[in-house]
């Protein structure tokens, strides 16, 4: 199959970027989207042109390093897929695809399609952990956890931290990402002790990093590769309000 690619090229965060058009032919529908970019980069390398920089690593949908907005959709058209899981069978022969980086003020462009997502690390640093040091833990079965609660905590914990929720949010809010961690830890008995402080610290960090307010449009949950539940945001709001109203 043939595809026309309009790819965002930008030298670094300080310079302006623009879309550059490339044409590829002889592609197979079994190819993954990133393998198609590999093909393009090989062609560019042979010509001695600077290759397209994009983030990727595990290529099986779990590391969260791949990003890309394809025709305005974070991670491509399939919904709940990562870019690396998107295959060319999702497109038609002759399609024209616009490929852009994840955009948000807190995601400065490094080059081309690579963006800096350390702002998300900063949110976790603020409180997204349980302060149990190595060696402190009691025997694992001393605290039984209801099967459904463990499963529900897993649904939240499954977040791969890719940032698609932020990239797709019209407010660039990191609510879904942040709430996934807050909900994960708030649901488990191990996370109870730091529960009240955790949510407030993380929300403060979220705001300091320059992310926007959630307006509950629900777009984030529609693109989340791990289908983190939208209700986690609501859970986070509950945790926040409760913490604000009860903790000294």
């Amino acid at each position, binding site marked *: 199959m043939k595809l026309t690619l309009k790819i965002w090229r930008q*030298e670094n965060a300080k310079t302006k970027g623009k879309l550059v058009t490339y044409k590829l032919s002889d592609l*197979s529908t*079994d*190819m993954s989207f*990133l*393998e198609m970019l*590999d*093909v393009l980069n*090989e062609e560019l*390398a042979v010509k*001695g042109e*600077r*290759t397209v*920089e*994009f*983030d*990727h*690593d*595990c290529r*099986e*949908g*779990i*590391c*969260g*390093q791949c990003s890309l907005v394809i025709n305005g959709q974070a991670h491509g058209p*399939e919904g709940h*897929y990562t870019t690396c899981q998107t*295959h060319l*069978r999702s497109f038609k022969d002759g399609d024209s695809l616009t490929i852009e980086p994840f955009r948000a003020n807190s995601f400065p462009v*490094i080059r081309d399609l*690579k963006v*800096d*997502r*350390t702002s998300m*690390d900063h949110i976790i640093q*603020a409180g*997204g*952990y*349980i302060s*149990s*040091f*190595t060696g*402190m*833990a*009691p025997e*694992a*079965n001393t605290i*039984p*956890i209801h*099967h459904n609660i*463990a*499963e529900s905590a897993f649904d939240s*914990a*499954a977040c*791969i*931290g890719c940032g698609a929720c932020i990239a797709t949010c019209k407010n660039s809010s990191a609510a879904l990402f942040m709430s996934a961690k807050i909900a*994960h*830890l708030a649901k*488990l008995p191990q*996370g109870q002790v730091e529960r009240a402080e955790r949510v407030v610290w993380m929300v403060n960090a979220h705001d300091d990093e320059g992310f926007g307010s959630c307006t509950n449009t629900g777009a984030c949950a529609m693109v989340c590769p791990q289908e983190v539940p939208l209700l986690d945001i609501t859970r986070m709001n509950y945790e926040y309000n409760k913490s604000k109203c009860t903790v000294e």
Partner: protein
Amino acid sequence: MALNAKIPKGPLKDKWQNYLDTTNIVNPANRKKIDVIVVGGGLSGGGAAASLAELGYNVKVFFFQDSARRSHSVAAQGGVNAAKNYKNDGDNIYRMFYDTVKGGDYRSREANVYRMAQCSVDLIDHMTAQGVPFGREYSGYLSNRSFGGVLVSRTFYARGQTGQQLLLATYQAMMKQVKTGNLTQYSRHEILDIVVVDGKARGVIVRDLVTGKIERHSAHAIVLGTGGFGKIFYLSTLAMNSNGSATWRAHKKGAYFANPSWTQIHPTALPQAGEHQSKLTLMSESLRNDGRIWVPKNKDDDRKPGDIPTEDRDYYLERRYPAFGNLVPRDVASRAAKERMDAGHGVGPLKNAVYLDFKTAIEKLGEATIKERYGNLFNMYEKITGINAYKEPMKIAPSAHFSMGGLWVDYELQTSIPGLFAVGEANFADHGANRLGANSLLQASVDGNFILPNTISNFLSNEIRTGKIATDTPEFDKAEKEVQAQLEKILAIKGNMPVDRIHRRLGKVMFKEVAMSRNEKGLKWAIEEIKKLRDEFWTNVAVPGDDKGPNSELEKAGRLADYLEIAELMAIDALSRNESCGAHFREEYQTKDGEAVRDDKNFMYSAAWEWMKGEEWNLHKEQLEFNDIEVKTRSYK
């Protein structure tokens, strides 16, 4: 230098405790004065970084990803083993030790394996306390599943994303330490050299992958948790950027490389579909709990799997290994699949796969149960192939997966360079010639969290008076110059062969002759081919752009340059071992029905290779002693 594994005295079960009782430790007030560099932010490196920072050392952690949460430990699916005996099925530390040594075909270091089994018990407690949502029974207690190569259920799991959950717990522990200020993280930094000063590892040369700047960092000790080098096969289950460069550059600075040729070929990955494929996604081994593996009995049977009646199917694992059936260890399963495919029974358009069928399990347990156990794996399969595996069998194929070999380390996880430690997949000791499923998360975690923090203190206790290590010394100058020179050399070639194309060709050579089955002729041929590819690389590689900013092609080229050297050592190692053991199967050494023939008299050693200038290697043998386990022929029949 003679190899000294420094195994503590005493009975096997007391060795680790004896070590802990007598090892030197560092006073909390002195820890602040000591710098430790950790390379790699995954389960082993990250665990070490977090644990050392908790102890109060100044820790710097380097990784090439944009966040430590992306380290490739994240992709481990099935689970983590621990000898908790929650199932009352007779599991205990000794049995786990036994299974691991046997699974490794009696080529691992007894004391290390036993220690790993001992620490496994604490690991589950530790991870649960960190908030890992392990699978639970309806009683609320932890649940287990079974894995290949064992007769008990000792695998703890968090759906099919156990690695992710353990890694995130470790990552969170690291983030907590970043907040306390004990840990500084350097994301998007790639290690390019180790600096050795007066015989001790004292620093690293790194490249900032954003600005392109070369930086020097010094420390009193360096820990490598950089994972395996299975990506050398190009098509593998590893992440695209996983590499062997840090360990290799340490090797070239004097660290011995042990058993490099022992690469696990995982039996249940997705088959290659086309020439441009970059990755073979792993399907967890846990699928073999309920899935049955078969191929058509007739050669080139082009019927759809559903149309092939039972009498025309060959459930070859159940046929050959009735005791373990579909749950034989990975090396055995992979080789059996290769045997069937070579005999012309492969399925799929390229005849490069076998079926993994869930029909029996779905009939017996219902689709809902299968969905709960493996739902995300089935989803993943459908995302990649577009096929619904509830309706028709999965097509799976062997793929390069795990490096049992790695930097040689002693009992303290210290390499042959004093002050340089290696943890997790980057070292070699625990898995012998074949790793059992769900032992890799275990090894990485216990190395980082429980073992290294205790053993590194023995080294660091002598460093409390050393003071800061200067980075403006001739050793640092020299290392930085060499690194800079290599980057410039690569950029100056301006050839017309892209890095990936050379890498793909290397992968083909390696997968053909240095993978599941090897022979003398093939290995010698491979060595010649590797040399040719190396020449081609250094004369014709196409790396556009410069080193002043992000340049993925330059990063890949540097890694490939190292692979082209590692590959040769792998072939040399395979050639030197005239026996079949575990993942290392030499066609010259097999029984009539194709089972491996070990030679315990001549080869019961770990091969530790020393880099000599002029690209030659010197072999050091660490003889293995098994006092607490009877060495037998491994049989899963």
